[in-house]
């Protein structure tokens, strides 16, 4: 039998996940997973998963193409540097997030010795340096470039600031060992966002350098280039599903929420413009495909951080059983035992409560807000961020949602709430679950077969 099999590989932080797609028949042949083995040889986990897949599907023909993404070994970690916190620093941060990075360090204005020291100790893979609109302030970015040069951190630097400073920055770094790239400004005009050129270079550095540094390069013997960080492939899948491709229609504005062990990621595809004329948009332009990551909202690694967000009283509001529970002990168990799977009804309910908190809090931080301004002409409103009240679909992914008996109960937390009236949350979305865990693989597949990836997404999200 002639078969054209495209294998999609996601080297995750915990699992290496495989999806095999029959390109001709337009079907998913099967999926499998095995523990990611970065510490020994990343191919061990890959081979094991492949073996499982082949055993379960002996009918699978020869693999004709492979694409891979990775969030193993901590994923891609970036630091963003800008001038004004709400403007170029925020623009730089959004570029990093859109490229699938985790951004734990954001600095604004002049970098201080203390901040340079933080960068030195921070385990950062790439620094994105911005500052000033084109033709605007260049003194700050020059100062920061000089500081970074003197510090000689050995970390690649992407410069995406005021173009007027580009030549001088080139002179600062040329002849040094620092790997640097100068690209278009992330905020060329006030409040105008331009993140694509920076994102492109981030991906390039990720492929050529980060994969090597994280000990995953060996996998490329089998998989070819690992072409992007996993969160970026999820974002690409979401964008494809929203927009559609050629004559294959998309779903329109949508949101993906991914509750993981360490973080909760929220992706939205949509403009999110104000819906009424008396509402004025404030602040930096929002990216059409927007991703936010919450490092303190997760089911396992971050379970203890989550505990510091909610009081025991608040926690009770999310817990559905009547039974007593020991909040601290249960959270500690999960934090110390990251591959723990709940085995009793109580533990399942506890996980569900944690997931609902992740959902609710990540939504508060992702969506836009309105505030009232009292003017002599009547009430006006400022909107900061995206208005997502009209969003069509909310798609849930990540272990806890996929394995839950009632995932939609958890997802409902994204909805409008009477105690959070000023947040522009979805009001009546349809909920879908990524049951087959294919979002990331479909993002990968879309790079070669967009229409097929779109069809499979539409078929398998339920």
């Amino acid at each position, binding site marked *: 039998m002639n078969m054209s099999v495209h294998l999609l590989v996601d080297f995750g932080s915990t699992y290496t996940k495989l999806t095999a797609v029959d390109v001709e028949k337009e079907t998913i042949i099967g999926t499998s997973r095995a523990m990611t083995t970065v510490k020994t040889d990343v191919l061990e986990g890959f081979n094991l998963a492949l073996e499982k897949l082949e055993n379960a599907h002996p009918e699978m023909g020869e693999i004709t193409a492979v694409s891979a993404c990775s969030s193993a070994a901590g994923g891609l970690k970036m630091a963003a540097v800008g*001038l*004004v916190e*709400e*403007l*170029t620093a925020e623009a730089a941060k959004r570029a990093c997030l859109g490229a699938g990075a985790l951004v734990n360090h954001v600095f604004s204005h002049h970098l201080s010795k203390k901040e340079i020291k933080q960068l030195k100790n921070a385990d950062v893979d790439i620094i994105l340096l911005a*500052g*000033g*609109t084109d*033709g*605007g*302030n*260049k*003194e700050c970015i020059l100062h920061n470039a000089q500081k970074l040069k003197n510090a000689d951190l050995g970390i690649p630097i992407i410069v995406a600031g005021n173009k007027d400073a580009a030549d001088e920055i080139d002179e600062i770094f040329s002849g040094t060992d620092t790997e640097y790239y100068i690209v278009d400004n992330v*905020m060329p*005009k*006030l409040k105008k966002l331009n993140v694509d050129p920076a994102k492109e270079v981030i991906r390039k550095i990720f492929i050529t350098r980060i994969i090597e540094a994280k000990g995953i390069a060996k996998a490329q013997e089998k998989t070819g280039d690992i072409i992007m960080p996993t969160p970026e492939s999820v974002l690409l899948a979401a964008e494809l599903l929203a927009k559609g491709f050629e004559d294959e229609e998309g779903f329109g504005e949508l949101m993906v929420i991914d509750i993981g062990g360490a973080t909760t990621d929220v992706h939205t595809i949509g403009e999110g413009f104000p819906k009424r004329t008396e509402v*004025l948009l*404030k602040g930096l332009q929002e990216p059409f495909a927007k991703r936010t990551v919450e490092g303190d909202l997760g089911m396992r690694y971050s379970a203890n951080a989550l505990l510091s967000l909610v009081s025991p009283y608040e926690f009770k509001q999310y817990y559905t059983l009547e039974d007593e529970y020991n909040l601290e002990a249960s959270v500690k168990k999960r934090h110390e035992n990251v591959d723990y799977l709940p085995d009793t009804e109580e533990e399942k309910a506890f996980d569900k409560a944690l997931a609902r908190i992740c959902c609710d809090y990540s939504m508060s931080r992702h969506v836009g807000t309105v505030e009232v*301004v*009292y*003017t*002599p*002409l009547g009430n*006006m409103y*400022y909107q900061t961020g995206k208005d997502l009240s009209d969003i069509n679909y909310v798609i849930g992914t990540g272990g806890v949602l996929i394995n839950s008996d009632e995932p939609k109960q958890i997802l409902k937390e994204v909805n409008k709430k009477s105690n959070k009236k000023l947040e522009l949350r979805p009001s009546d979305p349809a909920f879908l679950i990524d049951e087959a865990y294919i979002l990331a693989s479909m993002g990968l597949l879309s790079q070669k077969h967009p229409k097929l990836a779109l069809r499979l997404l539409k078929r398998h999200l339920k």
Partner: protein
Amino acid sequence: MHTVVIGVIGADVHAVGNKIIDHVLTENDFNVVNIGVLSSQEDFINAAIETDAKAILVSSLYGHGELDCRYMKENCEEAGLGHVKLYVGGNIVVGKQDFKTVEERFKKMGFDRVYPPGTDIKKAVRDLREDLG
């Protein structure tokens, strides 16, 4: 080409004058960064920092300008914008008041140029050329 930040301060939504100022300054070879209506002091200051503006022109038509402009100079200095020229114009105080005393008060607050209602914007263009060189 000099960069200038313009906008309407406070809970003031008067957009027409703002558009005229934008148009005339642009025609006269200024790089205009227009932050529009309903702008706070912080919006003016952040915009001026990123764009390296040489002057900030504050408009106000609804009478509460004097409240909205309080400590603006001090806030600019705090943000490292002490060198940036500060202009204000429009119906900037409550009711009809003697403009001389109004001008004095605003100059005391740190504004370099103060314009009464009905000023031709070309006057501001001449002043900008004189102040910025």
